[in-house]
């Protein structure tokens, strides 16, 4: 698998570390149920998914990667700092 880092270009999987689902962070005063879901409740899709990856051995940026767990196709990569996926 190769991931196209928006800063570095296409790089080998070994430079990246997987973190998990890219979810919007609840507001600080959101109810416990929202934080519980944010921390613990995950889908396990066989298909399109959106994950956080760390370009650990490269530019050290956090990335939001949209990919398909069934076909391994990657649809898009963006910087987490500029992504709406992780904003509430």
């Amino acid at each position: 698998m190769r991931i196209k880092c928006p800063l570095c270009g296409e790089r080998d999987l070994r430079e990246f570390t997987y973190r998990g689902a890219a979810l919007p962070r609840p507001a600080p005063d959101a109810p416990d149920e929202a934080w519980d879901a944010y921390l613990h409740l995950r889908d396990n899709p066989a298909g399109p998914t959106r994950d956080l990856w760390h370009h650990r051995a490269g530019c050290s940026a956090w990335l939001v990667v949209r990919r398909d767990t069934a076909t391994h196709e990657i649809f898009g990569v963006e910087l987490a700092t500029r992504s709406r996926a992780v904003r509430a």
Partner: protein
Amino acid sequence: MVDLIARLPGAEIDAHSEGDCVLGLPEPGALTWVSAEPGQEKPVGKALQDALGLGWPRPGRVLSNAQARIAWFGDRQALVMGPALKSLAGAAVVDQSDGWLLMRVEGAGARDMLMRLLPLDLRAASFGPGHVARSLAGHVPVIVLGRRGGAFDLLAPRSMARTTHGDLVRAMKTRLALRALDA
């Protein structure tokens, strides 16, 4: 007060030459990591321009003149090589001179040899003078800078410098051995 003896990062490491590939240990000067606060790349670049005559580098690029090099080092980060920097408004500035070992690989086989070790496309068409990449040499995170004449500068973290030096020497030997088999 205890009188401590300063040791340079490359104190136990020697230059090495193998066929058409030469590994040297040039003096890098000061290495200063600069991290601009969000949205401050432009003013920090202006301050660097005033101080060194070089601005803020684009991703994957190195700016250089006779006295200094500024290498892109990640989002909002740059590495200033050469003159020491004290501080810059709008940025965190950290002296890392002691933290990296600079190794230079040159010669006709340098490009070929490095591509054995790093998972990067280092062909002349995609990586040359003025390019920089952070990647892995084996399992060690390194910084590669392209130089004129097919040469490369490699910055390895001091704690892993002997590993990377050993990996480079082995890559030089393996490449020659494989070429001898093909001949």
